[in-house]
């Protein structure tokens, strides 16, 4: 595959690995968080950890939209799917995420709910047009990457005056979550996490631009390197971070220049500004409530807001007692620290959200990481 295989070249990886080895200071520890699940997945899939010196520790961040959604929101989605006359559409991974009592959309589907996996919100719009007598609800999740399509779908639904299409909006914001992590770290004197720097998101940054991490870099004095999702991108970004950490430099550097600009995709940002606005607060699995960390549908588009059309009181979600997803999402624990990991909790039978998506720390570690346990 042209333009992809070049970014997966093993020889080049060895060269960068040697450069990193020469650059690290042998007597210090480097705690680097890859915020995005896409990076977590790449790191495990290509065995990047095995190419790095032992004193570089990669900490998986909470950047997996499936993983950070609190159980109450999953329960809400399941309740929506079980309403009569409803077709609930969502991305594949969401269907398997366990809500309270290990109930999931997939189980609701088996019991008769009309739940459909779609590849894009466009498919949900199509289903709405084809089923005028049904209520079609799109379960929208994701960081800034999947937000613009939701915004465009709202505009489209308004233009077509669709009467049977609503969105259950769960879009969340990356820079705010990074700041919340750092704030928690600062306030917790016993914190086991002490981050030296971030591998910054790729696709999210295409939308919001690299300037969006200014507070993270300047207020918290952290180096951030925006990185592409290919394995050589990740390797090169780690090298850049090591140099910045060595030189005690903070700020934002951009490894992913072939896609990310400092200001991002203005058109996308306009679509979002037109249709969505900040929520006062939103609950994150593992991180708790974070102020102004998520988006909701603007009043002008209230007709397409599933939370307004189908208001429900959802009890607080019930986590599995032994599940460590929360601590894992904060970077405070690793998947193998959880008692359930690979024993009771496996990709076939996930008890926590981190085991569901291939971007989840537990699923990625289960699929690719167990070899290094020997």
């Amino acid at each position: 595959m042209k333009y992809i295989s070049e970014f997966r070249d093993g020889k080049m990886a060895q060269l960068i690995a040697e450069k990193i080895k020469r650059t690290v200071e042998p007597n210090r520890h480097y705690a680097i968080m890859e915020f995005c699940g896409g990076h977590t997945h790449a790191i495990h899939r290509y065995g990047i950890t095995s190419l790095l010196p032992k004193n570089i520790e990669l900490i998986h961040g909470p950047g997996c939209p499936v993983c950070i959604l609190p159980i109450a929101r999953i329960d809400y989605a399941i309740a929506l799917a079980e309403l009569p006359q409803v077709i609930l559409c969502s991305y594949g991974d969401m269907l398997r995420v366990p809500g309270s009592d290990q109930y999931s959309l997939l189980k609701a589907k088996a019991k008769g709910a009309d739940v459909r996996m779609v590849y894009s919100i466009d498919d949900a719009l199509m289903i709405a047009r084809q089923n005028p007598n049904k209520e079609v609800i799109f379960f929208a999740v994701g960081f800034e990457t999947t937000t613009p399509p939701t915004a465009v779908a709202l505009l489209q639904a308004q233009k077509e005056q669709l009467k049977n299409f609503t969105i259950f909006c769960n879009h969340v914001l990356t820079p705010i979550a990074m700041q919340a992590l750092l704030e928690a770290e600062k306030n917790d004197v016993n914190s086991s996490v002490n981050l030296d720097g971030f591998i910054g998101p790729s696709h999210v940054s295409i939308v919001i631009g690299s300037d969006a991490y200014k507070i993270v870099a300047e207020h918290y004095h952290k180096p951030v390197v925006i990185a592409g999702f290919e394995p050589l991108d990740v390797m090169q970004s780690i090298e850049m971070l090591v140099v910045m950490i060595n030189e005690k430099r903070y700020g934002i550097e951009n490894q992913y220049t072939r896609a990310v600009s400092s200001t991002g995709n203005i058109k996308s940002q306009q679509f979002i500004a037109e249709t969505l606005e900040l929520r006062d607060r939103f609950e994150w699995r593992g991180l708790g409530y974070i102020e102004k960390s998520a988006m909701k549908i603007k009043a002008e588009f209230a007709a397409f807001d599933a939370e307004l059309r189908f208001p429900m009181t959802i009890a607080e979600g019930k986590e599995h007692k032994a599940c460590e997803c929360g601590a894992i999402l904060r970077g405070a624990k690793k998947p193998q620290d959880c008692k359930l990991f690979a024993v009771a909790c496996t990709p076939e039978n996930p008890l926590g959200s981190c085991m569901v998506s291939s971007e989840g720390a537990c699923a990625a570690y289960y699929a690719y990481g167990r070899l290094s346990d020997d």
Partner: protein
Amino acid sequence: MIKVNFKHGMVEMNHGSGGKAMHQLIEQLFLKAFDNAWLLQRRDQASLNITNPRLVMTTDGHVISPLFFPGGDIGSLAVHGTINDIAMAGATPLYLSVAFILEEGFPLSDLQKIVHSMAKAAKDANVAIVAGDTKVVERGKGDGVFITTTGIGVVPTEVQLTNQIAPGDKVIVSGFIGDHGIAVMSKRQNLQFNTEILSDSTSLHGLTAQMLRAVPTLHCLRDPTRGGVAGVLNEWANQYGLGFVIDENALPIRDAVRGACELLGIDPLYVANEGKLVAVCAAADADNVLAAMKAHPQGLDAAIIGEAISDSHCFVQMKTSFGGKRIVDWLAGDQLPRIC
């Protein structure tokens, strides 16, 4: 006799009720297409005269969606799938039976296409469809047509498949992997994308016979259908209590399949095949087996992809082309629903 309207007609409940309509469908479609002495006896069973006592039997249900896909349809697939299960025992397939579950309202023209495609696949494989059954379910209770095929074959005396795997044994695949799953997926309602990939659906007993002539003591044969090559290797690893190491660079995967998998976020190792096999043989025999495969049109792109190792974890590992190592685990959940 009244002629069945195959052009505009559709399946009705009475096509399965044992009356005249069913009789007409059998006479004008199934008997005509499958055409052999056993069926023409018009009994409820076929009496077979098989002298070789090393009989092999298998059965397979087919529920694929869509029914017609690039490179095949549910009819040819139902024949190939069952023949291949027989062939993987080192056997020569002889006879098939087929059961149709039809949904009320299904176009008879489509049924006719499917039946003709089955007849051709069976004829090409030199296998007779000697018994059959038709049932009709109400509209909404099926998905057009489901087909179950059962097959019988015999293992030639000289074939001595060991069905054992030991560390050091080599793993060979017979050609490009992932074609079938991607071809089917490209035509699914909510996914349509343009690709020139055709399903690899075909009967493999010619290839297995040639391999077993070269090395009669092959260790294992399996067709990597649902779950793909990764599924087969994990099953073997668990069954034989060992591990496998495969080399990503050695995997034969078409560029178009690689591209589609990249786009869809799936791994070709888990994608279904309907005309490929995975073989395990002693290291000393590997070159002979590979040469025999490459001399057959269905094995031109065969490749040794790895070997069995002793490993108490029963992991399937892959050396990645990036230079790392990773586990190739069982598939969790459905990667591609209803592909066969």
